[in-house]
């Protein structure tokens, strides 16, 4: 199988993701690692909470991976996304793409994270000292 897509309630491992996409014919791997920033527009963030519509989220991530395979000569695609409570510095998302040549790996990885943020039904709540907000919910 050339695609691994996972929603997980436990810590994501960059090493595991790179190991999974690497194949003997791989020449380059691009990895995007999202991390929980300690502030949003200057306001300190205490923690994040992620919630997913699991079945549909997996569906949509599989669609994105298929689109990336159609667009670029890539070998393996991995998308891991956390759900639940994440502290500062934790990793909400890892995307890893292997290819014979780096151009395809970079382009596909960028496409996957950009599209994931637009279409995959996962929601992030930012918890501040004085309140909380569902990101992007309101104009």
């Amino acid at each position, binding site marked *: 199988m050339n695609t691994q897509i996972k929603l997980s309630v436990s810590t994501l491992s960059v090493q595991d993701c790179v190991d999974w996409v690497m194949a003997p014919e791989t020449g380059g791997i691009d990895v995007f690692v999202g991390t929980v920033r300690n502030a949003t527009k200057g306001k300190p963030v205490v923690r994040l909470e992620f*919630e997913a519509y699991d*079945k549909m989220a997996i569906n949509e991530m599989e669609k994105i991976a298929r689109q990336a395979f159609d667009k670029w000569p890539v070998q393996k695609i991995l998308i891991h996304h956390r759900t639940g409570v994440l502290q500062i510095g934790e990793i909400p998302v890892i995307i890893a793409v292997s290819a014979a040549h780096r151009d395809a790996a970079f382009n596909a990885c960028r496409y996957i994270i950009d599209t994931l943020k637009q*279409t995959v*039904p*996962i929601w992030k709540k930012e918890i501040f000292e004085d309140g909380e907000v569902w990101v992007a*919910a309101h104009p």
Partner: protein
Amino acid sequence: MKINILAFGIAKDIFNGSAITVDLANDATVYNLKYVLEQQYPRLKKLATYMMAVNNEYALDGDTIHERDEIAIIPPVSGG
């Protein structure tokens, strides 16, 4: 027909729960459903946008809803 609507993110706060049931005419469309929901939950109109999903796929306003479809309201996503 009675339709169960799954809610996520801010929609859960607006519905005050992770699912609600609404009464719809047979052959109602996604557009009809949105209208009913916005009447009952006017805060939906304040969202940046929202979509409906039918059987785990984004639905168009003109799509027809059937009794056993899995319906969900998808407020603006913010994963990644």
